[in-house]
């Protein structure tokens, strides 16, 4: 049997054989159909069991209480208060406002930006829209941006607040390529904020601190302290931050200024021209007659007030300097509250025919418990400061304003906080270091207080520690504060400072005769530049803190 030549299969492909190929297609179709049906079955059953399967991802742990119930946020209805999957409307504030968790840290700003459209809950989150509404805003003023535009949920433990530089620049009008190209100049760095003490680095650092190296070294028990700066500026409660807060301020300051806080006595109770027995008798008479009524605070400093409560006849012989008699009641009260150490009171009896006095002796500059802050004087001032802050606005513009200010001033003179004669500054006492009296006339005695215990907010995002330990070393710079900070002795001109209001300008005139050189972008870009240290917005700007 001879086999034909040509196609070895003795077979010609003809058109009528094409339909046979559809058998394979049908088979593929059946496989696809079965697989699809199985998938739908699985998805349907899973959906009925719960929506966890179709969730885009697990919620952040702070939202984990919501569980798998999508409808808590994503309701399949027209309720505009629900977060919709298209991200156009949100109601994160529905929880966050009521839970007192202000979305962007600044309660006042959040309130201001959300109140205007509070009647339309879906549009309450308007801070970005507000920003855009400013001249030059990059978006339509009425455009709405959802929380989810920046804060992506369903990403498990990923930081909800983490944003990129691109996210920031979506709204911020000052758009620039990077930190080292076009970033606006830093306004007030180091921040020149009002201080509570008369201190400037220009005077101390260059003139006095250099002589105090040994003394500071003895004070310095902190291993991290490596320079004269860190002798003062390393707050134990914030070990990662070298802050403006001075540690052991009293000890540091009193190393030199102990003589400015002398242990001194001043009269608390006097009776001019009275023998001690007669003086005591007078007090007894007042008490027995029920004439020494409890004094209102306003009565402490005015003869009118005194007459009103004690009677004009008994007060007739008492001069203004004898007001200390009535202060004494308050003094005793304060002393009890402050647990005044015994031994600080001293009755002075010079002679039978001389004035008697009850003197108080301050605790001195380095009392083991109180430091240089005498509890009696401090308590007194705290009370007076609170009262003064309360009174001044209430009586501003009234005839009582002048006498009140005079009385406060008189009181401060009495306790030695300010000199009797401002021109005679030789014995300034408290005002040697603290701003009190006429310098704080604009704001009462509110400024007379101890330095802050915690670093200001802007410092909490900035770690000197990182810069000193690694960043500067990597950049080949000395791990020393002077890499960035330079003391300048030129007078600070507050007049043109953009961040100061009128009141602060007035105060700053006195408080920053010399200080640190302004830190500009150029200082930072020595390291924070392309290819080196991060330039991301969030390196410095931490919106949620």
């Amino acid at each position, binding site marked *: 049997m001879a086999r034909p030549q040509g196609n070895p299969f003795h077979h010609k492909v003809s058109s009528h054989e094409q339909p046979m190929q559809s058998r394979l297609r049908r088979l593929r179709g059946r496989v*696809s159909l079965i*697989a699809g049906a199985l998938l739908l079955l699985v998805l349907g059953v899973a959906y009925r069991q719960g929506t966890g399967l179709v969730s885009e991802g697990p919620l952040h742990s702070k939202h984990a209480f919501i569980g798998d119930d*999508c409808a808590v946020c994503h309701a399949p209805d027209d309720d505009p208060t629900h977060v919709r999957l*298209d991200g156009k409307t949100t109601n994160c504030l529905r929880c966050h406002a009521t839970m007192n968790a202000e979305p962007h840290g600044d309660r006042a700003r959040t309130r201001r930006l959300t109140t205007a459209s509070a009647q339309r809950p879906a549009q309450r989150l308007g801070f970005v829209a507000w920003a855009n509404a400013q001249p030059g805003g*990059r978006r339509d003023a009425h455009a709405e941006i959802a929380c989810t535009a920046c804060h992506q949920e369903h*990403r498990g433990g990923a930081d909800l607040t983490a944003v990129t530089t691109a996210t920031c620049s979506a709204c911020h009008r000052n758009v620039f390529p990077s930190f080292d190209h076009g970033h606006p100049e830093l306004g007030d760095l180091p921040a020149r904020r009002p201080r509570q003490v008369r201190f400037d680095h220009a005077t101390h650092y260059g003139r006095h601190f250099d002589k105090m190296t040994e003394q500071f070294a003895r004070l310095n028990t902190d291993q991290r302290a490596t320079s004269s700066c860190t002798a003062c500026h390393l707050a134990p409660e914030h070990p990662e931050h070298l802050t403006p807060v001075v540690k052991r301020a009293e000890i540091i300051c009193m190393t030199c200024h102990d003589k400015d806080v002398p242990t001194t006595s001043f009269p608390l109770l006097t009776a001019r021209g009275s023998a001690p027995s007669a003086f005591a008798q007078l007090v007894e008479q007042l008490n027995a007659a029920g004439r020494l009524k409890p004094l209102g605070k306003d009565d402490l400093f005015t003869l009118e007030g005194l007459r009103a409560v004690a009677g004009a006849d008994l007060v007739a012989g008492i001069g203004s300097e004898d007001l200390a008699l009535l202060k004494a009641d308050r003094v005793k009260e304060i002393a009890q509250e402050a647990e005044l150490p015994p031994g600080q009171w001293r009755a002075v009896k010079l002679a039978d025919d001389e004035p008697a006095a009850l003197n108080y002796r301050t605790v001195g500059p380095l009392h083991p418990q109180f430091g240089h802050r005498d509890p009696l004087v401090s308590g007194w001032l705290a009370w007076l400061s609170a009262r003064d802050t309360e009174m001044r606005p209430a009586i501003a513009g009234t005839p009582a304003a002048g006498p009140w200010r005079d009385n406060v001033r008189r009181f401060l003179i009495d306790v030695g906080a300010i000199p009797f004669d401002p021109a005679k500054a030789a014995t300034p006492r408290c005002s040697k270091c603290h701003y009190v009296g006429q310098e704080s006339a604009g704001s009462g005695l509110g400024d007379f207080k101890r330095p802050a215990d915690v670093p200001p907010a802007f410092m909490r995002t900035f770690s000197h520690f990182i810069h000193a330990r690694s960043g500067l070393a990597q950049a080949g710079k000395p791990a020393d504060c002077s890499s960035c900070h330079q003391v300048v002795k030129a007078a600070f001109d507050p007049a043109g400072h953009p961040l100061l209001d009128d009141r602060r300008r007035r105060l700053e005139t006195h408080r920053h005769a010399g200080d640190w050189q302004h830190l500009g972008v150029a200082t930072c870009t020595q390291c924070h530049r392309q290819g080196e240290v991060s330039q991301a917005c969030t390196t410095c700007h931490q919106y949620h803190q």
Partner: protein
Amino acid sequence: MSAWLRPRRLWLPGLTALAIAGVLALAAFRAARLEDNRLWSGWTMLSALAVLAAFNLRKRVPSLPVGGNALWLGWHVWLGLATIAVIHIHIGWRLPIGTFSWLLYSLYWSVVVTGLVGLALGRLLPPLLATIGGEIIYERIPERALALHAEAAAVVEDCAGTPGAETLKRHFVDRLDGELATPRRTWRLGAEAAIAARFAVLARAAGPALAAPVADLLAIVREKLLLDRHWLVQGVLKGWLFVHIPLAVLALIAAIYHAAIILAYHG
């Protein structure tokens, strides 16, 4: 000029590149304005999947006046590649986290990978088929194998009574019956020489009287070898579609399910 550089071959990839650049630019522009990219990219993706799936329907109805198969294949390939950009815009250039998201993402990439594998096979295997020689429809191969078996059986039967026929018959029973019965997916590299040697031995054993039937059987076995190679190569060419198409159907169903969930909670 290379065939791949001819203008008629460049317009589809060029168009695809433009489309990808366009969607990337749109996504970047919207992202810079903090506008959501997920919705439009999702609908774009679903539409693209539908168009890609329509290629299979197009092949079922070749008479439709909507362009030839080659054009549709071109669109299928380049549009499929363009969806890689779209899906990643949709999910924000990160890996999915949720279970269903992973399922959908995995299905998508399975379809893409099997599609690329199929594309590569479609380029590599036809030349291989040409080297095998012959032409036969895949579905006809089992039938042809049976015919060869019957033809061989007839050759052996026709030799009955001839001296040496018993040898031929025993060889058929021992070797050829099983060898020819069904097509086998095997290449059998170097089998030609082995077959020739085997039949040379058979020819000597059967004697000169059976030289012609032995030659016929040799031709039949050689044809079966080619048939087996076609069965292998064409099986691979058609087999990848058994993976690609069901996966594509699953991906499309999952995408529609995903869109339904979005619509349900869209408000």
